[in-house]
């Protein structure tokens, strides 16, 4: 356990301390930069821009001195390396883009900068966000702060590890099939993936366009609400962005239903428990933690109702057809012609493509490009891609049937706690199967959260997943905030060795 310090403060608390001038942004930023150095062994970051961060912090302090305010002014964050930024290299965790510099900032990056955040750098992830352990990063591993011999989850593993290790109060992430929720669960922090279309995808390196969505990893629902509020909203540069007025998610935290009280803040909330989310294969330690958390929700006034998501298992093949299909096309632009890796030795155009892409992409990315190319091929498209799209529609309909009977759906994020490094790296199918509880909401485009719900085997954190209806982020955040008002799982800190000075 490290000494208490500014790193213990979450976004909201740090915002209050900065507003009260108890701390300056430069002080906090400098402290966190030191912690990144001290905890380098975690491998959370891909690039840290010390000078740039301190300059932004000084600017935030100066602006505060001239009357500027705002909950995120001077708050240090960092971005998953899927978001393009002008100030740092952007790699997507791939050798293909080693050293790549974007001439523009992603919309999410731009909006958070406008809100006054200080960007420390870029965080590790699975290559092109493909993976669930961050072991597919072309550069290095990221370790789980709760047990350095275990994975942090993925693909937003660098973001989750950095927030859990108190290197940052919050970080951005992206979620295509669970890439925010699963690492949040594995690292014992709070993560939210909003409804598809709430955050702009402009400047987010595409994996599977119809599924990719930006979100936040932080310590609490309140912190998530503050950051999400600043980064979301319509963007004319993304045709799939939802044309809706900007939302004040923080204001939603306090909005209870009729009959809610301080003692029963969840009164009136119906929580649906799909029986398919509690199968025999669910690890006992995970189920025990979840059942206790759900009992706490009930104690806070929520009603638990049984619902069904009969196509939960099908979400795995559906996802692993659609996502690779889109990825195979999205990744075609990495051809060595205009930017990115180009092989040194080649004879003609075809061999240049072949060598550049063979050298630039890692095994999992190649596997998905091949699967995707296959399912889109003449003669297979109808059997695979079109069938998968039909099932995707049915999975979305199943959720709507559930939401007739409940307001949010609860269940596990992953079937187990974080597994040891290397345990599944030779078994891609085992990795895919472990996505079963996060894929359905992704396919339906629904918002989902992971909130710390206790601990399982080996003292590893367990996350509770909450899924809401379209644009019901407020409902999710309110429920999570009420739960966090009554529990302290989200305040638990990993027993990190003291950083080397």
């Amino acid at each position: 356990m490290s000494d208490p310090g500014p790193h213990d403060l979450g976004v909201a608390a740090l915002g209050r301390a900065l507003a009260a001038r108890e701390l300056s942004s430069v002080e906090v930023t400098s402290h966190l930069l030191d912690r990144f150095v001290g905890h380098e062994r975690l491998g959370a970051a891909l690039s840290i821009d010390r000078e740039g961060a301190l300059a932004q912090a000084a600017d935030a302090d100066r602006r505060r001195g001239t009357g500027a305010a705002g909950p995120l002014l001077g708050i240090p964050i960092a971005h998953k390396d899927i978001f393009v930024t002008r100030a740092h290299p952007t790699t997507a965790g791939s050798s293909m883009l080693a050293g790549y510099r974007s001439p523009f900032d992603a919309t999410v990056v731009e909006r958070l900068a406008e809100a006054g955040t200080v960007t420390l750098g870029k965080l590790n992830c699975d290559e092109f966000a493909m993976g669930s352990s961050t072991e597919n990063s072309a550069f290095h591993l990221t370790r789980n702060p709760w047990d350095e011999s275990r994975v942090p989850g993925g693909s937003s593993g660098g973001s989750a590890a950095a927030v859990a290790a108190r290197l940052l109060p919050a970080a951005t992430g992206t979620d295509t099939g669970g890439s925010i929720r699963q690492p949040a669960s594995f690292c014992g922090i709070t993560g939210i993936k909003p409804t598809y279309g709430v955050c702009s995808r402009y400047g987010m390196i595409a994996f599977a366009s119809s599924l990719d969505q930006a979100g936040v990893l932080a310590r609490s629902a309140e912190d998530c609400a503050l950051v999400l509020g600043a980064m979301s909203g319509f963007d004319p540069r993304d045709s799939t962005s939802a044309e809706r007025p900007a939302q004040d998610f923080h204001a939603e935290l306090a909005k209870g239903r009729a009959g809610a009280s301080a003692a029963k803040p969840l009164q009136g909330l119906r929580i649906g428990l799909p029986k398919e989310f509690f199968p025999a294969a669910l690890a006992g330690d995970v189920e025990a933690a979840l059942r206790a958390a759900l009992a706490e929700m009930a104690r806070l006034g929520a009603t638990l109702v049984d619902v069904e998501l009969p196509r939960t298992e099908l979400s795995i093949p559906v996802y692993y057809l659609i996502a690779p299909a889109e990825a195979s096309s999205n990744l075609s632009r990495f051809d060595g012609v205009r930017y990115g890796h180009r092989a040194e030795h080649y004879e003609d155009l075809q061999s240049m493509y072949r060598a550049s892409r063979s050298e630039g992409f890692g095994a999992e990315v190649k596997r998905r490009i091949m699967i995707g190319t296959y399912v889109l091929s003449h003669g297979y498209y109808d059997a695979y891609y079109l069938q998968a799209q039909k099932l995707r529609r049915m999975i979305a309909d199943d959720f709507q049937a559930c939401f007739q009977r409940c307001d949010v759906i609860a269940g596990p994020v992953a079937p187990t706690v974080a597994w040891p490094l290397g345990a599944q790296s030779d078994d891609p199918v085992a990795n895919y199967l472990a996505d079963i509880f996060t894929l359905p909401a992704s396919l339906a485009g629904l918002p989902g959260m992971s909130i710390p719900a206790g601990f399982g085997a080996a003292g590893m954190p367990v996350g509770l997943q909450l899924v809401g209806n379209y644009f019901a982020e407020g409902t999710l955040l309110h429920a999570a905030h009420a739960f966090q008002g009554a529990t302290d799982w989200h305040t638990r800190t990993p027993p990190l060795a003291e950083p080397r000075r």
Partner: protein
Amino acid sequence: MNGAPGRAAALMRGFEVVIGIETHAQLSTLSKIFSGASTAFGAAPNTQASPVDLALPGTLPVANGGAVERAIRFGLAVGATIAPVSIFARKNYFYPDLPKGYQISQYETPVVQGGAVEFFVGDVPHRVNLTRAHLEEDAGKSLHGVGREGEAGAGAPLDFQGDWTAIDLNRAGTPLLEIVTEPDMRSSAEAVEYARALHTLVVWLGICDGNMQEGSFRCDANVSVRRPGAPFGTRREIKNLNSFRFMQQAIDYEVQWQIDLIEDGGSVRQATVLFDAEHGETRAMRSKEDAHDYRYFPDPDLPPLAIDAEWIERVRAAMPELPRDRARRFQSQYSLSAYDATAMTPSLRTADYFESVAAASHEPKLAANWIMGEVTRRLNAAGSDDIAIAPATLAALIARVADRTISNAAAKQLFDALWDGEGSDVDALIDSRGLRQMRDAGALERIVDEVIAANKKSVDEFLAGKERAFNALVGQAMKASGGKADPGEVGALLRKKLG
């Protein structure tokens, strides 16, 4: 549909020729179809390529409403169905001038469905049915060269050595409307007249500048031959025909080539061919066997393109009167013949010009004659389509011909002066050049009397029934008047005096 209804196809060496045309019309938007970069032609390489056009990581396409609106305008003009929902799809293939590794196009559900183009071949009306017209983006350009020589010309960077290929992405993302016909044409002449009519239409509608040299209007011709009554033969596609003359030559060559092949016992294999204008022949580029699998699928970055009735009505309200409708109106309103009416509608500019001249002069037939005659002659001579005389000026000139102030010959002389910028006041020029026809009846009578007296031989011949002698007398009188007499009046006076 086996060809246009109601007519027998002319056979070529006993074969029926079957042609379908695909046209890429570059839409005249200022910015690209999925990015804000400019579409202007001729800029330095890669200066008009935005991050979206370069397919930089993280970029996304946003459909240009102006391109969609032009597609709607076209669909309405050809009487097609405007799809309430159409789908952008990705056509996947690797090529250096295709930055994303896929082209955004429309595949299963295009924006314009059906419709037809009507035109004349000679004086025979034809109608070609359209299958579809869809929106898509253009690719960039690959330029090839050796050392300092090549398509980049003197602009090739100094470090270009040996064989090189350079990529210019200025054109990448330029909006195209691909217009596809049914296999309805039965000769190269029909194909060319279809293409001309389509060209007139897209330029008329203001959706395409029609510049074929710059590639704004390019045609591919699918050509096959068959024995009458037999099923369609295997087609070969002639790519990138960028002039009507080449189209005719390429199709004619291709038809003979296919018939030769079949008569020699061979069979046509599906292929893509290029027309070599220098040698006047078509040459295979690739055969069906190495055709790509483009792995089309709906583009997840672009929602279905929704066009509601209100949008269609807005476009309809702003549509210009179409060439065919305008020609019909010229027939009824100005009493032009069908031939003249068609001749007055080859372009919006000509039609507007005609109508201004006709209205100001109250002489529509004369206006049409002058435009088909003198105006066309000067335009052809100048190789331009800028009419150098304002419509009001030409109308004034025509009015002076009509009221017999000047003769036709004088009017032509004056027309050239006006065209060459030697003034614009018709009446002032008539006076300063002394072109006014003789209106003094006494003076004319004196001239006629003198001519009769001085040409006894011609008078006798005329009285003996030789009409040619009469013309000689008129000529003499005209000459005596210095060209200022009205030949009609001279003739009438002569007949009266000799009658």
